[in-house]
């Protein structure tokens, strides 16, 4: 994961690390031809954050115009969708309208990765390559790491727009989101119940509390799971 942040930081060369720059940095790092990253509340209310080239933009638009394609499927089914060869038979069976358009646009292979933590979904990273062929295991691992980096940034940005910093170390303390921190997931559910809100909001509140009290999110989550900390009324801190 550290290596991924290093790649992103080097890519922005001292500038601000954003979700868009993670998207842009992954293309040369993975040796692909383009990427698009969009965020959404639901599949019909989405926002294209970044597209690295024209073809990426076209692939994105086409999928949402037609309502089908790898990234639509990645979102709805909460799974990564890897299509190493768009010209192969099964792709056209899965997405009869999208595939001819994608081939015409110049894509040979498309890989879609949902930005998600369990039931929390915030968007999809959509990668393409002109030439067909599968991702190597190393490329796949990197693609997942870039997806996780983008997710971390999205959740962080949503927490506080005033917390602007270009320092990656400061922006990204280890928070156990991608690790096996079971209590964080459980506490997210509990806080959602306490606040009667969605999981995404609950996770943001957990992170905000941890940040404000100089604790790790794991420590905070443990307090919630142990029922020593409740998020209730207006002023739970």
């Amino acid at each position, binding site marked *: *994961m550290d290596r991924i942040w290093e790649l992103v930081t080097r890519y922005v060369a001292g500038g601000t690390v954003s979700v868009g720059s993670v998207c842009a940095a992954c293309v040369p790092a993975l040796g692909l031809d383009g990427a698009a990253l969009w965020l959404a509340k639901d599949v019909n209310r989405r926002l294209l954050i970044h597209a690295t080239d024209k073809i990426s933009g076209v692939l994105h638009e086409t999928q949402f115009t037609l309502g089908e394609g790898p990234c639509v499927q990645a979102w709805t089914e909460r*799974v990564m969708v890897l299509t190493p060869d768009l010209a192969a038979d099964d792709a056209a069976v899965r997405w009869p309208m999208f595939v001819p358009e994608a081939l015409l646009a110049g894509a040979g292979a498309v890989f879609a990765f949902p930005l998600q933590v*369990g*039931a929390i979904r915030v968007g999809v990273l959509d990668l393409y390559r002109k030439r067909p062929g599968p991702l190597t295991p190393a490329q796949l691992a990197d693609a*997942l790491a870039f997806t996780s980096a983008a997710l971390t940034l999205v959740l962080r940005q949503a927490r506080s727009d005033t917390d602007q910093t270009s320092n990656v170390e400061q922006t990204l303390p280890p928070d156990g989101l991608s690790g096996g921190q079971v209590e964080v997931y*459980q506490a997210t*559910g*509990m806080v959602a119940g306490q606040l009667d809100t969605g999981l995404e909001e609950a996770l943001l509140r957990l992170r905000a509390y941890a940040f404000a009290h100089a604790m790790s999110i794991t420590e905070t989550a443990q307090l919630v799971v142990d029922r020593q900390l409740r998020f209730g009324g207006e002023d739970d801190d």
Partner: protein
Amino acid sequence: MSREQELSRVFVELADTLVADFDVIEFLHTLTERCADLLEVDAAGILLTDQQDSLQLVAASTLQAKQLELFQLQSEQGPCLDCFTTGEPVSCADLTAQPQQWPRFAAAAAEAGFVAVHALPMRLRERVIGALNLFSVDPTGLNHTTLALGRAFADVATIGILSERAAREQNLLSQQLQNALNTRIIIEQAKGLLAERRDLSMDQAFTTLRGYARDNGRKLTEVALALIDGDNSITDLTHPQPIR
């Protein structure tokens, strides 16, 4: 019922759940419970690797087994980790014996009440995707028959996680693993929500969620998502009717 009959019944039961649209976490939990019933051990757990090769706990038959598995992952030491790293079975019939190969693990095992541990790799050809771990409260080695059965269970667990298609292609394998782990997270989130709504412990919340899914013939993950989405179809889960 003889042990053989019982075994074939269990394998049929597990095979029956291996339909196209099955629930991987529910399946693995059932499998750990059946292991504990049939292999003359007291508990079982399953660890699974993700794309970054870090191990995660996906199922355990008891709370004690779960805690011991988590301890291993946190302390990065123990027979189940060795099994995963080497891809070979690792057995310790008596953790209290000297010299101690895994001192921290042995102490944690003693606290959880376990004396013997056996770890069997879950393999797909050259790749190790996880480990099936068996725990006993008494010092016990595994005899040849039990070991063979344990391996059969590890294979069934592997097949359960991977579709036949996945076995042919590296990337599909990773998709299935990632999917299994994400499903596990969804269930943890739902457990938290249910624990809060009904004032239950996490384990009670899991049992309730699982019981509800079974009683209503629905998938565990589907029930978990319905709960998270505030779906009206499961209001009787969050607000159970008082027994009249």
